[in-house]
């Protein structure tokens, strides 16, 4: 076991620090779930991409630096330490990109990865349907092959970023009469396609963070099929593994929040009851445990292991850790927790936003109840019925 960073990795950390120090916005951007905020975040993606900081672990030919996942973790640590903006391109770069790298053709990689890296094409996910939430195999949106196109008809929902994004990756039923996990395929669809209507849905914070998508005979080129036709479930599960597992939620984001929580505690400790300090410590401890576990996971992945059902444990841990951390902040803020202006001018309102967002964690990417079923059945071996 070796937990040291190489001198190249230390040098890399210093470079990241220096670049972010010079380029990261000094004030927080408006939420990317507003029209203005979305475009400002897209600009930030372009700034990152210009100097090849957007996706350091991607191959060089697609806009990355070809570095390993340890370097990616280092980048994330410095990124959140610098309090740089959240990634508006996260659905694309963290979920779709690894899926394209695994299942895409060379032509698809060349077509989709560079504009994703540059921020020119921002992606939304289109999996859930009104009747297919936790039971995702109940998907009914269908795609019928017509020459060199698919014709897509149906409805998707909870599509994050879809209000302002450019493309979506959808899971649709391509095989007529198929049921459950069989006969599904993954299609890449431009959100400005004819016949596609987006209806923004206001989230808990009032901003349209996700949308409902209505497909009325939308024509999609057959070359936009990602992975095998009718084999989309396996492709989607790979994406879900990335979502629950490693990439979407690196430890740094939570560790930065824990450090802010400790500051908040120190500012207000004189009026707090004695149990609050322990909750703050537990929140910090959890982020450290999550970080140690992530380095363990990355070490295994680097050595060739693939992430399977254990990504469900990851998702349970980070989502509940995040909710607990923000709930603790709300406790500290007391009567002022309800104010959108927030208690502290430096932190203006961010705890309330963070708490609301943390409530989504145990729901999205497969509810925590689904994750517990997966762990119980596939890892512990308890009977399905």
């Amino acid at each position: 076991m070796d937990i040291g960073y190489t001198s190249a990795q230390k040098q890399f950390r210093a470079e990241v620090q220096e670049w972010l120090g010079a380029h990261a916005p000094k004030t927080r951007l408006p939420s990317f779930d507003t029209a203005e905020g979305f475009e400002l975040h897209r600009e930030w993606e372009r700034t990152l991409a210009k100097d090849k900081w957007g996706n350091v672990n991607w191959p060089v030919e697609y806009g990355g630096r070809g570095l390993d996942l340890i370097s990616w973790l280092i980048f994330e640590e410095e990124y959140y330490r610098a309090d740089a903006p959240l990634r508006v391109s996260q659905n694309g770069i963290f979920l779709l990109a690894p899926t394209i790298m695994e299942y895409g053709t060379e032509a698809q990689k060349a077509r989709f990865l560079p504009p994703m890296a540059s921020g020119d094409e921002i992606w939304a996910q289109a999996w859930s349907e009104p009747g297919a939430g936790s039971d995702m195999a109940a998907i009914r949106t269908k795609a019928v092959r017509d020459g060199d196109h698919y014709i897509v008809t149906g409805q998707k929902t909870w599509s994050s970023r879809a209000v302002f994004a450019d493309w979506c990756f959808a899971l649709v039923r391509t095989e007529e009469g198929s049921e459950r996990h069989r006969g599904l395929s993954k299609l890449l669809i431009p959100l400005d396609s004819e016949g596609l209507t987006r209806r923004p849905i206001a989230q808990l914070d009032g901003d349209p963070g996700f949308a409902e998508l209505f497909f009325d005979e939308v024509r999609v080129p057959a070359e936009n099929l990602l992975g095998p036709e009718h084999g989309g479930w396996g492709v989607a599960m790979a994406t879900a593994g990335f979502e629950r597992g490693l990439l979407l939620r690196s430890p740094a984001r939570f560790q930065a929040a824990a450090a802010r929580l400790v500051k908040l505690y120190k500012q207000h400790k004189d009026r707090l009851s004695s149990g609050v300090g322990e909750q703050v410590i537990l929140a910090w401890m959890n982020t450290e445990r999550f970080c140690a576990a992530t380095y363990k996971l990355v070490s295994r992945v680097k050595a060739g292991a693939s992430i399977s059902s254990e990504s469900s444990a990851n998702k349970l841990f980070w989502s509940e850790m995040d909710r607990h951390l923000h709930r603790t902040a709300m406790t500290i803020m007391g009567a002022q927790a309800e104010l959108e202006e927030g208690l502290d001018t430096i932190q203006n309102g961010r705890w309330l936003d963070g708490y609301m967002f943390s409530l989504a964690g145990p729901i999205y990417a497969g509810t925590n109840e689904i994750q517990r079923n997966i762990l119980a059945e596939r890892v512990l071996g308890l009977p399905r019925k």
Partner: protein
Amino acid sequence: MDFRFTEGQQDLIDAAKAFFDGENTIERMRKTVAGEQVSNLWPQFAQLGLLGIMAPESAGGLEQPLVVMAGIAEAAGYAGVSEPYVEIAGITVPHAKKGELSGPIQRAMLSDLRPYIDASLAESGEVVNSIDPLRNLVKAKDGNDENAESANVHGAILTAAQLIGLSQRMVDMSVVYAKDRHQFGKPIGSFQAVKHQLANVYTQIEFTRPIIHLAAIKGGAAVHNAKVAAIDTAMLASETAIQVHGGMGYTYEVDLHLFMKRAWALCGEWGDRNYHMKRLEDYVLNGDAELGPGQTFN
């Protein structure tokens, strides 16, 4: 950066695990509880090199780092080994003087954090009765050895490692029981109310083991984090396991109690939750160390 055991280290841990599981069977534990004569494992500990895991090569040891001992301690916890093997190999031996290593060592480090010790490690001392029927304890002498501070770190990490081994054992026993026990015409393990509780314990174990390994290599605040996390995990594991076992879990006949009581005992040894939490108060709430991203492995 490769936060995994090397192949050689993993082989060592696997061999120790196979030995513990093969020798310290449930049968052997039951016999010990019943006061019957059981096999003496000490000659085998010695023959297999398990006592010298951390001893210097010059003294015939394997000179392995503490993190490997943590892997072995987890296996010992899982098997419910009651001999103070982890104590000798992981705490006394690495702090022993060179000359002492030429013969068998059967003593414990003195520390305020560990008021009761195995009777075989003390020349004398008032006998105390542990709730764990497999622990034979006496009151330790007051005071601290000169290396007590380092022994405390070893002790905290190795009890934490045993606690997650015990936690995993209690999960495994509960899974076996929940698959076998039928109610309402189905195995109780098919009910989500049972599944979800066990999934929670599994998750806590998976997110405690890495911080124990980090603590074993890096020391510092991670040691206190590791012990508190292991205590909380072990208490959750034992409460969940008895709930899954239902009335059977509340009996002296079903073996779960042996592992549950061992867990309770080790929670308080080498610094209880209050001790380690107070160290974390000093570090997190009252200290000025930089917290947040980039500090964990630096």
